[in-house]
């Protein structure tokens, strides 16, 4: 029994030693890979800048090894922020379209619903109904112009 434990202990020590040596040998490669992946995660326009900046950062903290994995987090977040900007820009653009479509749908529904449910023809409806429709249409146009104005302001504010 004692012999088996001794053999097991020696084997385990050798194995741990071998594994730690392997890990040490692989560490610089892993760090390089993490760094490359981090840089590649960024949009092409930002890669050169951050690649040089982060290489300078690594030089300032020698022996950090796997600390370069931290750059993966940084790259993910910066990429996310840039994508959020793009998404916001698209949303602002399509929001204006959505209001236009909403306005047209409203006009279409106004005609269709009066045909389906209304006993009266559009031309013979009460003047108050016509007026309320006009007010709603005017409000929609107003909202549309406000949104367009806002979107043009935001678009100029968002940095490319």
């Amino acid at each position, binding site marked *: 029994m004692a012999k088996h434990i001794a053999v097991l202990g020696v084997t385990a020590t050798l194995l741990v030693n071998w594994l730690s040596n392997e890990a040490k040998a692989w560490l610089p490669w892993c760090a390089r890979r993490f760094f490359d992946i981090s840089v590649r995660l960024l949009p092409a326009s930002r890669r050169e*800048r*951050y690649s*040089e*900046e*982060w*290489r*300078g*950062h690594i*030089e*300032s*903290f020698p022996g950090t090894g796997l*600390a370069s994995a*931290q*750059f*993966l*987090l*940084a790259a993910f*977040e*910066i990429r996310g*922020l840039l994508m959020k*900007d793009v998404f916001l820009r698209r949303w602002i653009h399509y929001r204006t379209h959505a209001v236009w479509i909403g306005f047209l749908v409203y006009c279409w529904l106004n005609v269709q619903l009066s045909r389906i449910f209304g006993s009266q023809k559009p031309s013979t409806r009460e003047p108050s109904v016509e007026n309320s429709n006009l007010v709603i249409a005017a409000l929609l146009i107003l909202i549309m112009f406000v949104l367009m104005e806002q979107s043009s302001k935001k678009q100029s*504010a*968002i*940095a490319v």
Partner: protein
Amino acid sequence: MGNGAPRMTTQTLGILGVFLACPSQEIAGADIAKRTGLKSGTLYPALFRLERAEWLQSKWEEGVPKELGRPRRRMYILTALGEEQARLICSRVTEMIGGIAWQST
């Protein structure tokens, strides 16, 4: 203002604190990391946000990497807008903490 005010976290406050200590000085990302103890995974997105909001400006340090013997550093400096906003935030935070401290005594 650039792209709205950046999200104000303790990390961002720490970074602004470093810049407020020497407002006209250009500081590299690695130096900010040393002073604040922030990891690069937190530091660079925070710097990116501040730069996007035009609170910070950045430029490459003078010199060629071959002559320097190392990669160039990106130097960050507080803008006039950034300094104004950072001071405003600092005064608000001080006011709030002062109020809490006053209430707790």
